[in-house]
């Protein structure tokens, strides 16, 4: 596979002596403790799962080309639906953004040689392959079919074995995420180079800080919910069995107490990527550093108190519907602050239209759509109509595809040279961007209309009045599927044979660019000393050159 082509170069001399100079391809399949290698493990692993989840989506969209359930069995449709959602969240966005970019970048950005607990770090990664296998394996038992939310009682009475495997898989992924979070927090608190005060820490690291705190506070609650579910299915307990005195609403609270914050777990690291990519390619200091840090923290806090907006039509008393309407609306404010800050960063810049920058600007616009539809959903009166319709599907794909996936692509185009020592091909990157932009809007924009008009979500068959719009969505999905090809070709080809990258091809100012590409094991011969802020573009004396030697 792709990792095999990683250039193995012996020209660095390792700091510690007993270390090898660079990792061999097979090291990527082992329990290795280097944060960079782990980061790449996460990224490649999650991308494979992205392809699997994407394939499931294509099958579902094919089914929805016609109103009747005529392509696949409706139970299989539900299994695909459930695993598509689960894989995209727990197998792609979370591990890629947090595990992948977080692990690769945080130590490099703060001038550390590794994470605080390297073994824990490797362990956190290696919890994921079994989690993935459990999900894939569950298809031999029919696949979990109760949606990624797995509400009981449906999840208690459908495909018990597969549902249990699903629970175990998520519990593993959650454990991995908790371990990772502890590691990030300790690393950032303890291991910054002495010359880096908190207010000179790159914004990506701040985003990882907010993400980790949120993950630590919310993930255990999900784990509790799923363990109880697992007990109900397998050990005869009745926490969520209504006919035996159980309460199905409690599950929804436990689930959403985690899963609303989870949407921020999936977007805060992406916001961090945005704050790195935009200044570099616009050649501008980030606008409003403190506001961006502050808004991450505010999102992280308020984000813990909005979960009931997923339950407006469920078992929710009136005062709660109103309380959570207002808290939800308030989250839009710090989110807006970030959007406006990035927009202002563009002002007066000298914008380089690299593929990374294109995806970042595309994200800005897509995310505005998703944020605005989120506000409409956040109010109980409108949500009573829109809940569980295609309008919601449109909303979360604008934030998750237009936001998280665009951001992951921006990050890959930006840091690929650092990770592999090779440049990606820019023209192919632009083709990829255009196809993705068209495909995403064609697929998801019409869904707003579907939902408003009356099409519920999670259905394998629908009223024939919705046929036309569904066909547009399906064509969009095919374009999206196709858009991955230029990207895959680009990554595989460039990794093996692409143009060699210098240490700092974008002339960026954060510390990861002060070492070679790819960085040596343990990152630097001698740790860098901070002489300027992370975003001091255009400020006298900080014109970075393309090749910053790593041993100054």
């Amino acid at each position, binding site marked *: 596979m792709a990792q095999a082509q990683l250039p193995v170069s012996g020209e660095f001399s390792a700091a510690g002596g007993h270390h090898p100079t660079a990792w061999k391809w097979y090291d990527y399949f082992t329990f290795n403790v280097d944060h960079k290698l782990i980061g790449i493990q996460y990224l490649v692993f999650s991308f494979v799962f992205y392809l699997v989840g994407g394939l499931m989506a294509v099958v579902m969209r094919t089914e929805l080309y016609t109103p009747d359930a005529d392509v696949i069995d409706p139970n299989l449709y539900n299994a695909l639906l459930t695993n598509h959602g689960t894989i995209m969240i727990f197998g792609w966005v979370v591990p890629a953004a947090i595990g992948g970019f977080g692990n690769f970048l945080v130590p490099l950005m703060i001038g550390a040689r590794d994470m605080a607990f390297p073994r824990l770090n490797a362990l956190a990664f290696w919890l994921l392959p079994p989690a993935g296998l459990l999900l894939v394996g569950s298809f031999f038992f029919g696949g979990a079919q109760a949606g990624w939310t797995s509400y009981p009682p449906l999840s208690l009475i459908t495909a018990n074995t597969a549902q249990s495997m699903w629970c175990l898989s998520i519990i593993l992924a959650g454990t991995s995420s908790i371990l990772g979070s502890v590691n990030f927090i300790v690393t950032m608190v303890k291991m910054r180079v002495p010359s880096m005060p908190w207010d000179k820490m790159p914004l990506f690291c701040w985003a990882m800080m907010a993400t980790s705190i949120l993950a630590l506070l919310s993930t255990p609650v999900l784990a509790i919910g799923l363990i109880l579910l697992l007990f109900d299915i397998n050990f005869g307990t009745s926490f969520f069995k209504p006919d035996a005195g159980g309460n199905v609403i409690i599950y929804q609270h436990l689930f959403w107490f985690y899963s609303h914050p989870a949407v921020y777990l999936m977007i805060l690291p992406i916001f961090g990527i945005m704050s790195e990519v935009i200044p570099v390619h616009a050649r501008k200091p980030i606008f409003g550093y403190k506001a961006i840090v502050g808004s991450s923290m505010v999102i992280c806090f308020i984000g813990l108190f909005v979960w009931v907006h997923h339950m407006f039509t469920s078992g929710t008393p009136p005062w709660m519907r109103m309380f959570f309407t207002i808290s939800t609306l308030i989250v839009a404010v710090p989110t807006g602050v970030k959007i406006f800050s990035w927009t202002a960063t563009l002002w007066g810049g000298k*914008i380089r239209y690299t593929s990374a920058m294109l995806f970042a600007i595309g994200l800005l616009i897509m995310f505005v759509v998703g944020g605005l539809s989120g506000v409409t959903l956040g109010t109980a009166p409108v949500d009573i109509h829109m809940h*569980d319709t295609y309008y919601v599907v449109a909303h979360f794909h604008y934030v998750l595809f237009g936001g998280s996936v665009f951001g992951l692509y921006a990050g890959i185009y930006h840091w690929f040279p650092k990770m592999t020592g090779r440049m990606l091909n820019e023209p192919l990157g632009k083709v990829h961007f255009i196809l993705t932009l068209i495909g995403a809007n064609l697929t998801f924009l019409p869904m707003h209309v579907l939902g408003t008009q009356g099409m519920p979500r999670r259905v394998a068959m629908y009223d024939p009045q919705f046929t036309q719009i569904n066909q547009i969505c399906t064509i969009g999905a095919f374009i999206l599927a196709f858009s991955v090809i230029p990207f895959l070709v680009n990554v595989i080809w460039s990794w093996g044979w692409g143009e060699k990258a210098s240490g700092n091809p974008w002339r960026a100012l954060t510390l990861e660019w002060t070492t070679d590409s790819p960085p040596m094991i343990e990152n630097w011969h001698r740790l860098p000393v901070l002489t300027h802020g992370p975003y001091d573009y255009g400020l006298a004396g900080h014109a970075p050159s393309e090749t910053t030697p790593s041993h100054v």
Partner: protein
Amino acid sequence: MKQLPASIWTLTVGILVTLIALWAGNQNLFFPEQASVQAPLVDHFFNLMFMIAVALFLLVAGTIIFFAVQYRQRPGDEGDGVPLEGDFSLEAYWTLIPAVIVIVLGVYSVQVFTEMGGFAAGGGGGNHLLMSHGHQPHQPMPAQLVSDDGAEPAPAFKAEYGLGGSERPDVTVTVTGMQYAWIFNYPEGITAGELHIPVNKSVQLNIKATDVIHSFWVPQFRLKQDAIPGHDTELRFTATKVGDYPVVCAELCGGYHGAMRTRVYVHTQEEYDRWLAENQFAQHPDLSKAVAVHATE
């Protein structure tokens, strides 16, 4: 172009954005027809938000695209941009203005929600009414007759959540969701697969589920309420337009969830009474005498 002062540009853009937003907010784009008293409330509120959203989108996306074009790298220019790191008053504006907007929307949504009957949920309006049917108080109680015949007495219903009302509804129907059908039970002893209600009369739906969670949704009414095993829920509304509309299950309930659809028939009062009479006769011939008396009255 350069000669025009910035204020004129700002003004033109402002007027354009306002016009487009006003237009978009007044179209009731994409909504199905309005067939309940709640529908115009929801639509009006949505359209207000849609108007604001269109304006914001045009402004933000327009600014992004304008900056992206205006501040592109010019050939041969390898320099950096303006080293601007922030601007307190600008940041205060774009924090405070959205904050005011969302707070106003929040307050407004409380009001809309109240008008929709949201705060009357679980208030007891529907709880003692399983056997009542306000518009014909002199009629014998068929549900009691049924239980006199040895059928099971109706279980007590205690709505906890939903949209309710404190006054007696004109019609009360018990709605039961099950994989994959909706069953409608009338206090007159009628059981039906579709919902029949009179127009312009207040209707109380007492909603339950027997197996998994379902969700009762009529897009034309803009109303949705989950049917939850173990928790009784309710919906109180008044249909405003004669016609028939889809009833859709909106909560994933299994493989055939998408096929769990039926219809609601909104009748004129006379049609409704006729429907009641016919079905009472068909389902309970033994009651035909009582019904016949009333039908000829």
